């Protein structure tokens, strides 16, 4: 079944003469649904390995599907089905670029992501990884006539390759002199903790470059606004998760032994990334940049979960590691769902209004009711509010934080709770960010006249977003059923099962380790809230006035108001700017009160650029200038160099 889906992607890929986006993207949507089913089915199965006769002679491709890869295949399937359906509508109406090329790259991108997830040797993994990077690079620069987009693509490419080198080195360390690059061999390699640490650090850097861990996140806010919306959705929703998959695969599967400080490192990096992403998302004025920073934040939350699981597992507290891992995986899937949903919503908004800047949107809830309603579900989910899915993973993560006092290390006991507080701040800030995002785009008065002509999204777009929103709701309401399905992963990765605690109470209640510790029931939440609303509404209607009339807004009797008086994205982020000034690089100009033509401008830059990347770039420049000394451009000189090299080599050999 799994091969069927892969074949479908493969078939759809080479047919680049497809004139109709609709046909091919619909086909690939079917592929996505098939992958969803395959992933769900594969969760319960034990690993199935296979050797393909492809690849170089003596280097066949090894593939293997285990519950972990099945889970990520499920994630890919759900998100890609939606993105494909959306693309059918989006590119049909002219999404920019040559549609045939986009179609080809899009499917190569999907297929290579599947290959990454099923690869069972470093060779196939790297091939798939690189083709994924390249395909996504070409998708990012679909609008390659714009200089900014080319620049964004370049940054992305550089960071992606830095990461790829680190991953390659990590695999090199992992095989430890056996010179066989199958994952099986790596599992059995007798690695000392020192080499294990090197491999882990390299993997953290390598996969971190793709996922966007601090300070390797800089490509995300550049590439996401540059790419067409469905592509940003796919990159943010799914591609970042392949990096998480890689990290999990290396640290829990290939490395058999863990050391606690790896987990602490991952935890610290994760929290820093999450906090950084949340603060920067709060001050953005471009809706896709805002979502990109929000992705950084969510990736940070996911890495925090990975770190906790590593710490627990290193101390052989497998049950707690399973809880942390459950939170991590749940958040991976959740983020794939709501971030894809929100990126698709921005795509629909951009299609309707041709605006990307938050300062020029507003009031779209009246013009685009469908997109607004579906985006509201995504907004509430990503803000981590019950009873939707985002809250479940956050709840599980908080629970695993609360279990950390059981650790036999008193320093960790004291410092991990402070991490909890930071996580709480991040969660609260993400609520702030999402209220800002939804409020500025969809609520209030339209900030531009042209917005009054905005049209709602087409059927394909609605279906795509509805599919994702439905998953958000279902995963929010019945987390226990889904966590039970994930149980084989925990058994495989950390050797513990959550069955006992999941079966201890009814399917309505999620528990972390035992019902006495804590429980949460989203169903009860929803039922009570709905019941109160219905009963209250009926009661009020029955006994009291039902009259309603429309009038100009009250606004404290102020009277004359216009769209420019409401908060802009800039204004909404202002308190955050003020409070977290130390973290931001702010370039702000206030006009003087006597200025006849007052102009205010404020620009926020990523301080990482200034403090890390610019010095590194200068260093590279200086080094290359040194190399330049020996480069004269004259053929005679180069011949002398080769001659001298030959002599030297001969001298060495003889």
């Amino acid at each position: 079944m799994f091969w069927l889906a892969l074949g479908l992607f493969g078939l759809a890929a080479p047919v680049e003469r497809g004139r109709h986006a609709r046909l091919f993207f619909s086909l690939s949507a079917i592929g996505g649904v098939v992958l969803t089913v395959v992933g769900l089915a594969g969760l319960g199965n034990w690993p199935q390995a296979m050797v393909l006769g492809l690849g170089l002679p003596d280097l066949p491709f090894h593939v293997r599907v285990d519950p972990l890869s099945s889970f990520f295949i499920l994630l890919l399937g759900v998100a890609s089905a939606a993105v494909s359906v959306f693309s059918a509508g989006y590119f049909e109406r002219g999404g920019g670029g040559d549609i045939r090329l986009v179609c080809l790259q899009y499917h190569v991108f999907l297929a290579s992501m599947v290959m990454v997830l099923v690869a069972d040797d470093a060779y196939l993994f790297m091939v798939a990884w690189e083709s994924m990077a390249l395909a996504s690079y070409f998708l990012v620069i679909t609008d390659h006539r714009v200089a900014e987009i080319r620049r964004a693509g370049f940054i992305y490419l550089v960071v992606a390759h830095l990461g790829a080198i680190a991953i390659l080195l990590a695999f090199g360390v992992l095989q430890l002199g056996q010179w066989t690059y199958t994952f099986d061999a790596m599992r059995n390699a007798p690695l000392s903790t020192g080499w294990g640490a090197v491999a882990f650090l390299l993997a953290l850097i390598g996969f971190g470059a793709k996922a966007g861990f601090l300070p390797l996140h800089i490509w995300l806010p550049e590439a996401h606004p540059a790419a067409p919306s469905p592509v940003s959705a796919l990159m943010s929703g799914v591609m970042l998760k392949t990096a998480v998959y890689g990290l999990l695969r290396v640290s829990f599967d290939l490395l058999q032994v863990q050391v606690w400080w790896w987990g602490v490192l991952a935890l610290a990096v994760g929290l820093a990334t999450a906090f950084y992403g949340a603060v920067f998302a709060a001050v953005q004025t471009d809706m896709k940049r805002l979502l990109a920073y929000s992705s950084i934040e969510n990736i940070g939350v996911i890495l925090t979960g990975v770190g906790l699981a590593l710490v627990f597992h290193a101390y052989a507290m497998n049950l707690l590691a399973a809880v942390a891992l459950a939170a991590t995986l749940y958040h991976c899937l959740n983020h794939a769902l709501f971030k894809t949903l929100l990126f698709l919503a921005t795509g629909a908004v951009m299609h309707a209004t041709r605006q990307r800047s938050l300062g020029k949107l507003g009031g779209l809830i009246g013009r685009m009711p469908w997109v607004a309603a579906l985006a509201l579900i995504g907004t509430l989910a990503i803000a981590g509010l019950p009873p939707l899915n985002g809250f479940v993973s956050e709840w599980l993560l908080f629970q695993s934080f609360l279990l950390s006092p059981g650790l036999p290390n008193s320093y960790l006991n004291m410092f991990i709770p402070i991490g909890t507080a930071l996580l709480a701040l991040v969660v609260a800030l993400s609520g702030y960010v999402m209220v800002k995002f939804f409020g500025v785009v969809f609520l209030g008065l339209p900030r531009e006249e042209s917005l009054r002509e905005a049209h709602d999204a087409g059927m394909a777009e609605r279906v795509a977003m509805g599919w994702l929103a439905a998953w958000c709701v279902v995963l929010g309401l019945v987390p226990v059923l889904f966590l039970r399905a994930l149980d084989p992963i925990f058994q495989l990765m950390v050797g513990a099962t959550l069955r006992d605690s999941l079966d201890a109470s009814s399917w309505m209640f999620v528990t972390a380790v035992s019902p006495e510790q804590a429980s949460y029931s989203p169903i009860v939440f929803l039922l009570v809230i709905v019941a109160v609303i219905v009963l209250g509404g009926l009661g009020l209607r029955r006994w009291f006035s039902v009259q309603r009339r429309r009038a100009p807004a009250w606004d404290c009797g102020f009277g004359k108001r216009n769209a420019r008086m409401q908060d802009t994205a800039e204004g909404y982020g202002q308190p955050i700017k003020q409070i977290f000034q130390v973290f931001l690089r702010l370039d702000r100009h206030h006009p003087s009160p006597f200025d006849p033509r007052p102009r205010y401008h404020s620009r926020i830059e990523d301080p990482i650029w200034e403090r890390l990347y610019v010095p590194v770039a200068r260093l590279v420049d200086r080094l290359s200038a040194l190399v330049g000394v020996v480069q004269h451009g004259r053929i005679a000189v180069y011949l002398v160099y080769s001659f001298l090299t030959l002599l030297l080599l001969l001298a060495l050999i003889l």
Partner: protein
Amino acid sequence: MSFSHVLLQLIQGLLAVALAPLVLGWVNQCRAWLQNRSAPSLLQPYRVLLKLLRKEIVLAHNASWLLRCAPYVVFACMVLAACIVPLVATDLPFSLAADVIALVGLFALARVFMALAAMDVGTAFGTLGSRREMLIAALAEPALLMVFFTPALIGHSTALPNIVETFTTGPLQLYPSMAFAAVAFIMVLLAENARIPVDNPSTHLELTMVHEAMLLEYSGRHLALMDWAHALKLMVYMAIGIALFLPWGIARPHDWLGVPLALIAMVVKLMAIGAGLALLETLAAKMRIFKVPEFLGMAFMLAVLGMLIHFLVEA
């Protein structure tokens, strides 16, 4: 889960909803006495609610469905919160549905709806209130979570009934960490419920308003629901404080005789806390919005200190 449990749950929920305006009335009365004013009647909040319920709703021309839904959602969230917190008894069926973290999430849900609806009409005041509210919440939430951390560590559970059980059934022991947590909790309570010194509940038409600024566009029964929900929120916060720091008197499981006693204890405790709140509000002055981060930062540090003391002294 037997019939009696459901009955108990229903009684507690309805009791909380019915009594919430009374608590607000009591706080207002105490405050008036302390400030040498003649106090309004204890029942004044009910009269205001009744008046608002009878009035027609005036909606702005561009108000969307979100503004009309928000009062119901906010009210329902607060009713659910009132059902979860052990006010008179610990064995409530609904209390299994949420531990303290889920409770924080529930408050966040109500707050996000309120903040979004405040942006709906697109007035300067509404958006101003919305962003201030979200800012205060973003800073209060970590502090609140740290406050919950200490009792959760002592009780080995984040479920409120279990924490109450630990404190009421265990030997009477002094927990210095809980004193720090209690002070931090009071500070968060003031911030989250729009009380002085963070926000002024009796303000209207001031540039500094936060909560009131979000309610400007509501009228009629929408406003009534919002006000009622606000009163409920204050009462639920008091109830959480009681459960964490003064849990004695709350009826134990299957202790039916304890329920009337618990009722009396609850009324006494709520009155005491209400009077204390009025005193705090009389003594303090409202602070600038950019002082609020310092205020909440202090609450956060106190909570962390409490937790560290727990590790050093009590563990």
